[in-house]
């Protein structure tokens, strides 16, 4: 079959957009519920269970409530910027999803359809470019609120997100080096051919996770919000639906980040240990590898959802387990630890790849296994030599102290005897 006709392309493209948008919004709503439920389980409580069976309609109730609440705009705030900020923060998280492939190609009567809204040739670069726009929502929201807490939150947001933008970009460099291209469908098919990148690039994954936690402003990196310090940080003054949009943006960023982690390092929609889904769709509409089928698309879609769900779970799990960093610690972790380590890692990896090329090993499973060995060694070095709990402490207190204080038995003597 040839490529899709223009008409079919437009209709199917619109359908895909709608599907992804609805699915993604549902996912975001589901994540808000999941967050509350999982937090509740971690904390020995029940979580929302009043609205609908098992609390399933809680997100709807939340949404309704937010629609009906009063909109408050603080005196002295910049009106248009104040209204625009939530939209700006919502938008990038949404459009990034366009370049993530969500399932194996689907055969239809009009041709084989790639399950991705836009297979842009600049893939990862597009993600980096758009995702970094998200910070504008936070900064503008914080600045326009005419509140000091919001202002501090905005300042923190800009500093933190710009810093971690660098770390995030650098953590993607290993993938680009190994893959040699930037489009996400290609990355998926390469991982199908060789190994999931989590093995040959596990150190890179470590960096990516840290950077993404910071980029999505999730605990332990939720400096811009920091509810115990800055009340609610950049969205202190926001109410009703504008507040809800900031919250949605946060969860949307989380979903997107989880989907990206799954795609970049865990084979995307690839079902492991099964070659039946190893297929690629060329630009002319021809499929290489296994034959596409609707059930394969469904299965791989579910697989992708499961992987994404798992990483969302990790996000939630971490949030309810660890305390929050201090602002300076976040910055020193980013600039003094993550970025230098990433540079060193990129250099080491480049050296290893050169050597493998010199040995004449082609890209494939064996090549990936050699890189895996290197990464395991690096990981052990990081954990047992470099880190030992010192990374996070950053430039601060480096003294190792016992986890117990000394206890004293103080003898009581009746003081009256010797004082008279």
């Amino acid at each position, binding site marked *: 079959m040839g490529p899709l006709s223009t008409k079919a392309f437009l209709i199917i493209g619109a359908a895909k957009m709608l599907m992804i948008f609805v699915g993604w919004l549902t996912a975001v709503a589901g994540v808000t519920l999941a967050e509350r439920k999982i*937090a509740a389980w*971690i*904390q*020995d*409580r029940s979580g929302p269970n009043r609205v609908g069976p098992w609390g399933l309609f809680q997100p709807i109730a939340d949404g309704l409530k937010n629609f009906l609440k009063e909109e408050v705009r603080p005196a002295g705030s910049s009106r248009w910027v104040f209204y625009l900020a939530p939209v700006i923060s919502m938008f990038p998280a949404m459009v990034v999803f366009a370049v993530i492939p969500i399932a194996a190609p689907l055969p239809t009567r009009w041709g084989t359809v790639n399950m991705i809204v836009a297979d842009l040739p600049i893939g990862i670069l597009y993600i980096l470019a758009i995702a970094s726009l998200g910070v504008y929502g936070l900064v503008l929201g914080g600045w326009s609120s005419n509140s*000091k*807490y919001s202002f*501090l939150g905005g300042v923190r947001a800009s500093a933190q997100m710009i810093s971690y933008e660098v770390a995030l970009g650098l953590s993607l460099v290993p993938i680009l080096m190994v893959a040699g291209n930037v489009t996400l469908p290609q990355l998926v098919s390469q991982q199908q051919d060789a190994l999931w990148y989590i093995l040959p690039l596990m150190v890179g994954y470590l960096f990516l996770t840290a950077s993404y936690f910071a980029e999505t402003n999730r*605990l*332990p990196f*939720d400096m811009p919000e*920091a*509810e*115990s*310090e*800055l*009340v609610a940080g950049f969205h202190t003054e926001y109410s009703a639906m504008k507040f809800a949009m900031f919250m949605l943006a946060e969860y949307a960023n989380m979903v997107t980040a989880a989907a990206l982690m799954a795609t970049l390092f865990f084979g995307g929609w690839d079902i492991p240990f099964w070659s039946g889904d190893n297929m690629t769709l060329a630009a002319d509409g021809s499929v290489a590898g296994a034959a596409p089928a609707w059930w394969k698309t469904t299965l791989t879609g579910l697989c992708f959802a499961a992987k994404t769900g798992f990483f969302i779970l990790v996000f939630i799990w971490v949030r*309810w*387990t*660890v*305390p*929050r*960093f*201090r*602002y*300076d*610690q976040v910055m020193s972790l980013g600039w003094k630890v993550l970025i230098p380590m990433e540079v060193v890692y990129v250099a080491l990896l480049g050296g290893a790849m050169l050597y493998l090329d010199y040995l004449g090993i082609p890209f494939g499973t064996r090549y990936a296994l050699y890189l895996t060995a290197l990464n395991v060694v690096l990981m052990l070095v990081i954990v047992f030599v470099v880190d030992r*709990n010192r*990374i*996070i*402490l*950053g430039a*601060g*207190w480096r*003294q190792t*102290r016992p*986890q*117990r*204080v*000394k*206890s*004293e*038995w*103080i003898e*009581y*003597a009746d*003081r009256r005897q*010797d*004082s*008279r």
Partner: protein
Amino acid sequence: MSSTTTSDNIDKGAGPVAPGERQDVAQLKTKFGPAIRSIELDAADEPVVYIAPDRNTEILQYLRDEQGYDMLRDVTGLDWGGGRPIQVVYELWASERRLPLRVKAEVPPSNPRLQTAFGIWHAANWLEREAYDMFGVKFDGHPDLRRILMPENYEEGYPLRKDFPLRGRFTRAEQTRRALARDLEDIYSLEELAVASRETRTAPRGLGVTAEIPTDVPDLEAKHMILNIGPQHPATHGVLRLVVELDGETIVKCTPHIGYLHTGFEKLSEYRTWNQVIPLTDRMDYLAPMIYNIGYALGVEKLLGLEVTPRCKVIRVICMELNRIFSHLIWIGTTAIDIGAFTPFLYTFEERERIYNLHEAYTGARMTTSVSRIGGMMADVPPGWLDAVRYFIETFPNTLDEVERLLSQNAIWIGRTQGVGVMGAAEATNAGLCGPNLRASGVPYDVRKDNPYLEYETYDFDVPIGEYGDVYDRYLVRMEEMRQSVRIIEQALDRVPDGPINVKDDRVILPPKSRVMNSIDGMIAHFKLVMEGLKVPAGETWYSVESSKGELGFYLVSDGGPKPVRCRYRGPSFMNMSNLPALVKGELVADIIAVNASIDIVLGEIDR
């Protein structure tokens, strides 16, 4: 009316002591001669030294430097009314020799003036402010003498003076009118202007803004920002307002404003009979109510010279240690929240819930327990209650271990707490830091060991002492204190004796109903106790117990009547809170939250 009774009979019971009975007092007398006006003994046989008001700093300096009175536990006033002099009471403690000393200076109510003791003990800072606020005693040389609990522009006078009516001088309508006429925003914005603008370089009265603004820059380029943390803020643990001057995110100066929850407990107590005061005490520290109930009862019993029954003593120890755990648990939880870890809060709250249930089973109330009575307890413990306590302390350490696993070795927790909010031992002693905070700074001072009550000296327990005096040490000290409390409760449960819980004394405890109904003397005793309240002999005492937050002092003065002349509650949170500015100076905004949480404040008791 107790406010009109005289002070003549206060010292009759004690009488002057022979000089030289206590070495340091004798030395004081020889050194200062006529400046020591008289020496008396209080109800606990501790010396009370009356000094000449114009030489107070000299004498206090001598006491600190030569006699080793390194802690200033309290500065407060005492007004007998009727134009008699206002007594300013300094309560000292020599930690090396474990000796208390009370020094009093009498100043005329028309012009009460004294030199400040701030230069000798930094602890005097807020204590003197409170004495000024409540009695109008002006302390010359005090760096920041403003009203502290009452509003800064309060116009009605000094509430704890005897001539001040319980309901205030103005009518409710007038009070409301004045409150509405006042624009609080003015005060707030003036503080900010003081930093932001060069025109208002002279800050409004007493606000003490330190920003140095060069005069040659335009207004908008002022360097420092004022941030109002509170009164509504997630991390202020009540209604506390911290005015923080920021340079970027670094704290240049922090000024706590308290008094938003001021209830006037001390004034109210003067209008209640001795037993009626007990419900007021648990409203102060609602996080460890029983310690306050029992501490107050112990103080009054000291005035009465009353010894409670052996069973009562052990039950009281159990209650107090249970409440220490109760309070430390919420401390761990809220501090973890403030540092960003939400989950430990719910773990500890689950355990607190079990203590709440124990409270409820015993007293019927969960928070405002009012468990003690003078001469005993409100009732004997219900059957099975002690077994429930035993079950609790057997299972509770598991949660402690769990929280410790979550926090103690967590790198972020360590990074956030170690080296933050440090105060050294000498400074902490001088500045009046108390309780676990003081011990975290390395000072081994625990009232249970240094001045035992309820036979604490017979229990086997250790006092955890920190080394660095930072937030992390405060956390470790409190964790260990809970384990030690478990040890104490275990020992107490093993030795709970049978017998009555209340003393058999018709002057203090209501006789049983059978006696009231069947015998005339029982009925008379009942009638007198109900109609008049119990009478406490004239005298005074400063009784302190180790509350969960530090040394909790009760300065109780009686004139022999059914109502107290003065009930002074020296709250440990008040003292700890006064040290917040010193602890957070130069730290970051995030640290002020961590430090504020770590010193364990409860606003009900700070504002009283």
